[in-house]
């Protein structure tokens, strides 16, 4: 499976259709029965009965949030894998997750309910600060090397994990379940307001990364080769780092730490469209969005014990699927 069909334009319409299908499925799934008629009325006639309200303020925001988060995590993963020249990189590898968690848990565990609307802001601030710290620590006169970035990411991450453990030990017991579920990722935290606020961040981040596509292609050649090919390597690295961290940080702030998507969806997308970033980034976005929305739908209905954490479903369901995808391609990725 090389050459030919990868170039075909069919992949993108199929992915878009898959995303649309996933969104519809997600909006159609839930304990409150909503008939097709009620759905139409809600959307086009602005009715305000229970079905309409459930559809418009619970299900649709949740589905859209899943799409935004999945797409953003996948795009961010693609960017980090190029920046670090490492197929095992994910959006959280360079401090974003630890920082976001410390920010979010500070609000969730130690501040009153009145402060909870500020949780996403604090999580985002935490993510940004830790990502910045990793970047500055890794920077040398000669620039930022992938190896140093990874090293500093690991160190800062370990430190922040210890802080998190400490926080959980000191927290009042009633608040711990909420904190745990945030750590595992939860799309149920999406309100229409939060989705609306998140949208410009995700839009900005993904567009910026798309514009950097060629730069990302060249970064894969190695710093010297990219330099000699005409790339302002350090500037592109910085821009990529900041944009990818912004993307990851903004979605983590709203939905918690959903894992696996940012790591594996880029590989799946490469199998579908090859590794040129001009095609890879949009494909990864669509694939990540569809994947997460489907996983969330599954998480809501799979278990009789109630909702499963979506991060568990992405890994449990996603791993075998992507293994299959990678094997079909001869393990090349």
């Amino acid at each position, binding site marked *: 499976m090389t050459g030919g069909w990868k170039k075909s334009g069919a992949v993108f319409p199929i992915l878009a259709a898959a995303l649309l299908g996933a969104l519809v499925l997600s909006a159609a799934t839930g304990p409150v029965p909503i008939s097709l008629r009620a759905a139409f009325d809600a959307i086009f006639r602005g009715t305000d009965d229970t079905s309409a309200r459930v559809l418009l303020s619970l299900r649709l925001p949740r589905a859209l949030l899943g799409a935004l988060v999945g797409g953003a995590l996948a795009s961010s993963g693609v960017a980090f894998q190029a920046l670090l020249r490492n197929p095992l990189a994910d959006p959280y590898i360079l401090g974003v997750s630890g920082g976001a968690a410390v920010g979010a848990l500070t609000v969730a565990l130690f501040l009153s309910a009145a402060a909870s609307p500020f949780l996403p802001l604090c999580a985002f601030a935490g993510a940004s600060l830790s990502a910045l710290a990793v970047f500055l620590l890794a920077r040398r006169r000669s620039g930022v090397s992938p190896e140093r970035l990874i090293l500093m990411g690991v160190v800062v991450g370990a430190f922040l994990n210890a802080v998190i453990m400490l926080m959980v030990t000191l927290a009042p017991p009633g608040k711990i379940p909420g904190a745990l579920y945030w750590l595992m990722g939860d799309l149920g935290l999406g309100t229409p307001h939060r989705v609306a606020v998140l949208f410009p961040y995700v839009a900005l981040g993904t567009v910026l990364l798309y514009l950097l596509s060629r730069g990302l292609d060249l970064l894969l050649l190695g710093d010297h080769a990219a330099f000699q090919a*005409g790339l302002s390597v350090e500037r592109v690295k910085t821009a990529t780092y900041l944009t990818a961290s912004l993307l990851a940080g903004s979605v983590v702030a709203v939905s918690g730490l959903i894992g696996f998507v940012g790591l594996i969806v880029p590989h799946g997308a490469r199998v579908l469209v090859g590794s040129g970033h001009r095609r890879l980034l949009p494909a990864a976005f669509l694939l990540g969005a569809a994947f997460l929305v489907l996983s969330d739908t599954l998480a809501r209905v799979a278990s009789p014990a109630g909702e499963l954490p979506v991060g568990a479903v992405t890994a449990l369901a996603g791993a075998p699927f992507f293994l299959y995808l990678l094997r079909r391609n001869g393990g090349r990725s």
Partner: protein
Amino acid sequence: MTPVLSAHGVRFGYGDRDILLGVSVDLLPGEVTILLGPNGAGKSTLIRILSGILAPREGEVLLCGRPPGEFRRREMARLLSVVGQDPPVDFPMTVAAYVGLGRFPHQGFFGGTSPEDREQVERAMERTELAGLRDRTLSEISAGERQRAAVARAIAQGARVMLLDEPTAFLDIRHRVAFYEIVTQLSATSGIAALVASHDLTLCAEYGERIVLLSGGTVAAQGRPEEVLTPSNVRAAYGVEVARDRNPATGALRVTPLRGMPAKPRGAS
């Protein structure tokens, strides 16, 4: 003829040790210059200095009359391209896409792929006999083919100067010969100034028009192969005894190493 790329009195070292103690070299258009020298002589370092990655401690480098630092990145890349030793292996990119990357200095981030771009990529692949492999990925082709792809990318870049850093280091004779064929033809037809850093005394003698012998931190000799590849020069640089004659088939200089444990080369640390 004015040199396209020249270095004058370049000094450079890592840490306290200076590797290059004052190197001067000129590259002329349409000419293939071969940079010879033992391991550690500083060939790669010199190439890095010539391409603007490293700045010399003393001396100057001029590309079309201006120092590399004065150029903007893309502008410089339109003038100078570099082929390194090891193009990426596990790269899930097709040959055509990889060669296409060479057009970046002409496109920038936002530019589309123009007909000119496509044509340059095609021609680059034809010259390197890669047209049949265009849709294969880099990990699928052989090492020799990958090296040719790297050369193709540099050709597609359309630069006036090409620096090649021991690109045949790990290749077999077939690919070495192919490589030198491609480079000499390219230089002759397109007027590109090429600098090839090499170890291969035999092929250098056959193909080289100008040879620069780097040893002990300076240019020990430069000129035509007959002038440079004398037994005393080779002994001083490599510690190896050689015999010289003419290749009966081609008439070019032929240099063959003789048996015996090599002596310590001059200036070796």
